């Protein structure tokens, strides 16, 4: 209950801080992306199903919503606020139709089958321009349709509120399911599918049901995105989207709904703000992903929650000198390596970006080989220092334990 209140407060306060305009628009997009991440978190974090084709369902939801909005424009009495819900229901039906073959065998088979279905949708969409609108896609108008007295499509605050309401409803609904028998069976199927049938439920049916639920939520996310952007193109089915959904959900953390929210925020930031800071944002995200998958599978939100829930009473003592050195060395190595990466990216754009690059107080000249060698050497030296100090710390800990 406390957490729910905290979340509602957060959703209310954030737009006050960012104000109307670009900030609010970003927040709205983050909410939509968070909904998509929520569907993936349910599928993967709870159900253990690693799908590489979830874009099929977000795309289907978007297209269903656009068609509904176009119908509203043509005179049908379609209540706008219910469009995402209707899109979600339609997508759930699609997930039911495709879920049978997708969920029969878990693990690698499910990954490949969902990937194949995603590619199939992506390949078929341009072939049916009457349904999918060809390369230009289909546009819609969210100010059309039944407003039921409360909805003003043109008002960005109303849009934000709509996204928030749907997000809260989805969180509440999924929370209910998590505590239900089905939720337990879904977690059990993730843990040990080979046992579940022996205690009763059929693992295939459990996975299928979870898949349908995730598909429905993804459809709602797609519907919301169609309302926000008022256009959808076959790009919605691009397998890159599926991959990104996986990337950001796993990166942010797939065990807790906070991870879904963080994942949504990261998705939007990675597409809008991060590329403005550095052209290497994709590379950094990929490397961060690999590091997290190997060292911290609980993701960024998981790490934060672990720190938040750590045992009280562990007083803050000064870390030992070796630990300090290790941290400084890590920062140093990362700083110089990052500088090299940035230099490489800028080198590609030499004609437009010029040959001088400021970096952490240094002025680097891209046409001087000496600068390149210096940066490489500095990065290697700091990396060496980090390696030595971490080995020393590991030996010290082993000795202390022995």
């Amino acid at each position, binding site marked *: 209950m406390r957490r729910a209140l905290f979340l509602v407060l957060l959703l209310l306060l954030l737009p006050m801080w960012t104000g109307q305009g670009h900030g609010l628009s970003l927040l709205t997009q983050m909410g939509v992306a968070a909904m998509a991440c929520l569907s993936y978190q349910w599928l993967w974090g709870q159900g253990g199903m*690693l799908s590489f084709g979830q874009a099929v369902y977000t795309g289907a939801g978007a297209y269903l919503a656009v068609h509904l909005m176009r119908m509203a424009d043509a005179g049908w009495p379609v209540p706008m606020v219910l469009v995402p819900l209707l899109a979600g229901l339609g997508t759930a039906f699609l997930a039911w139709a495709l879920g049978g*073959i997708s969920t*029969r*065998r878990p*693990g*690698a*088979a499910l*990954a*490949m*089958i969902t*990937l*194949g*279905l995603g*590619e*199939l949708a992506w*390949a*078929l969409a*341009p*072939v049916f321009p009457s349904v999918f609108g060809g390369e230009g896609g289909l546009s819609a108008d969210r100010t059309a349709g039944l407003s039921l007295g409360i909805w003003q499509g043109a008002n960005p605050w109303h849009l934000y509120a709509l996204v928030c309401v749907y997000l809260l409803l989805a969180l509440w609904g999924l929370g209910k399911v998590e505590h239900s028998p089905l939720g337990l069976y879904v977690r059990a199927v993730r843990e040990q599918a080979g046992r579940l049938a022996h205690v009763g439920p059929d693992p295939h049916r459990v996975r299928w049901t979870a898949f349908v639920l995730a598909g429905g939520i993804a459809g709602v996310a797609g519907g919301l995105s169609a309302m926000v952007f008022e256009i959808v193109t076959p790009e919605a089915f691009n*397998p*890159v989207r599926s*991959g990104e959904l*996986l*990337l950001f959900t*796993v990166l942010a953390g797939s065990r807790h709904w906070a991870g879904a929210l963080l994942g949504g925020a990261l998705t939007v930031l990675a597409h809008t703000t991060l590329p403005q800071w550095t052209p*290497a944002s*994709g*590379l950094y*995200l*990929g*490397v961060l*992903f*690999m590091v997290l*998958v*190997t060292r911290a*599978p609980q993701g960024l939100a998981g790490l934060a929650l672990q720190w938040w829930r750590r045992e009280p009473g562990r007083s803050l003592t000064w870390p030992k000198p070796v630990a300090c050195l290790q941290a400084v060395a890590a920062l140093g190595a990362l700083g110089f390596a990052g500088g090299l*990466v940035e230099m*490489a*990216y800028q080198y*590609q754009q030499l004609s437009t970006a010029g040959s001088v690059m400021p970096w952490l107080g240094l002025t680097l000249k891209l046409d001087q080989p000496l600068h390149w060698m210096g940066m490489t050497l500095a990065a290697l030296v700091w990396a060496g220092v980090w390696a030595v100090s971490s080995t020393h710390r590991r030996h010290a800990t082993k000795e202390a334990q022995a």
Partner: protein
Amino acid sequence: MEFFFVSVLNGLSYGLLLFLLSAGLTLILGIMGVLNFAHASFYMLGAYLCYALAQHWGFSAALVLAPLLTGLLGAGFEHLVMRPLHRQGHVAELLVTFGLSYVVLELIQLLWGRAPLSFSLPQALQGTSVWMLDLPVSRLFIMAVSLCVLVALWWLLHRTRTGLVVQAAITHPDMVQALGHNVPAVRMLVFGVGSALAGLAGVLAGSTFVTEPAMAGAMGAVVFVVVVVGGMGSLLGAFVASLLVGMLQTLALSWDLPLGSISSARLAPALPFVLMVLMLIWRPQGLLGKQGD
């Protein structure tokens, strides 16, 4: 008539190329139990490395060196990144290969840009041969190289001791380790060989078709379809499925039959996946896979 032969040849050569890729993936899947999502990235890496090497040392040297280099990179990745993850299970390994595919794509775009590279076969391998009708030499070259490599692979697996150990380690790694063989080294070897095969496929495809950052994504999904249709873990199944998919896609594209209001050429990219869905409904374990797999 000629057109028919050329189409069939194109289909066969594309199918063999697919088998080069899917054989490596099947071996890696068999011995490590994990789907290598970065397999298509090694394919792309092979093409780009060949381009870079050919500029200094000519195509023939690059043809040999690029796959070797790719194989070494693959083996290095397995040793440094995947071996410590083995304890954590298959999922962590799959995710890390997914991350690698992302990183490799970014690195390639960084080093070589986002536009397709103009990279073509040397003069001797272009054009059409006059012997056996007017068949494009490039396709014959692909078939020749693929067949040689695959025969060598079969011989290695079935006629050498290392091959026997590899086959045993695929199904009973613990037993093989208990018998004194170095299973982690075998894993590294198989991963390296699989990546080298992918790199070779990349060399052949990149020089004949196109070398661009999108090639990994396009090929990767089709290779997974081949593995699913052929049956996960079956090399013979992968062979049959590769030829099937290769012929199907090439013929649909070149013959351009009208199907209702849509031509088969427009449907060609979707056909492998349609085949996969049909196979999953009719025979979920694939053509030669084990039931309950």
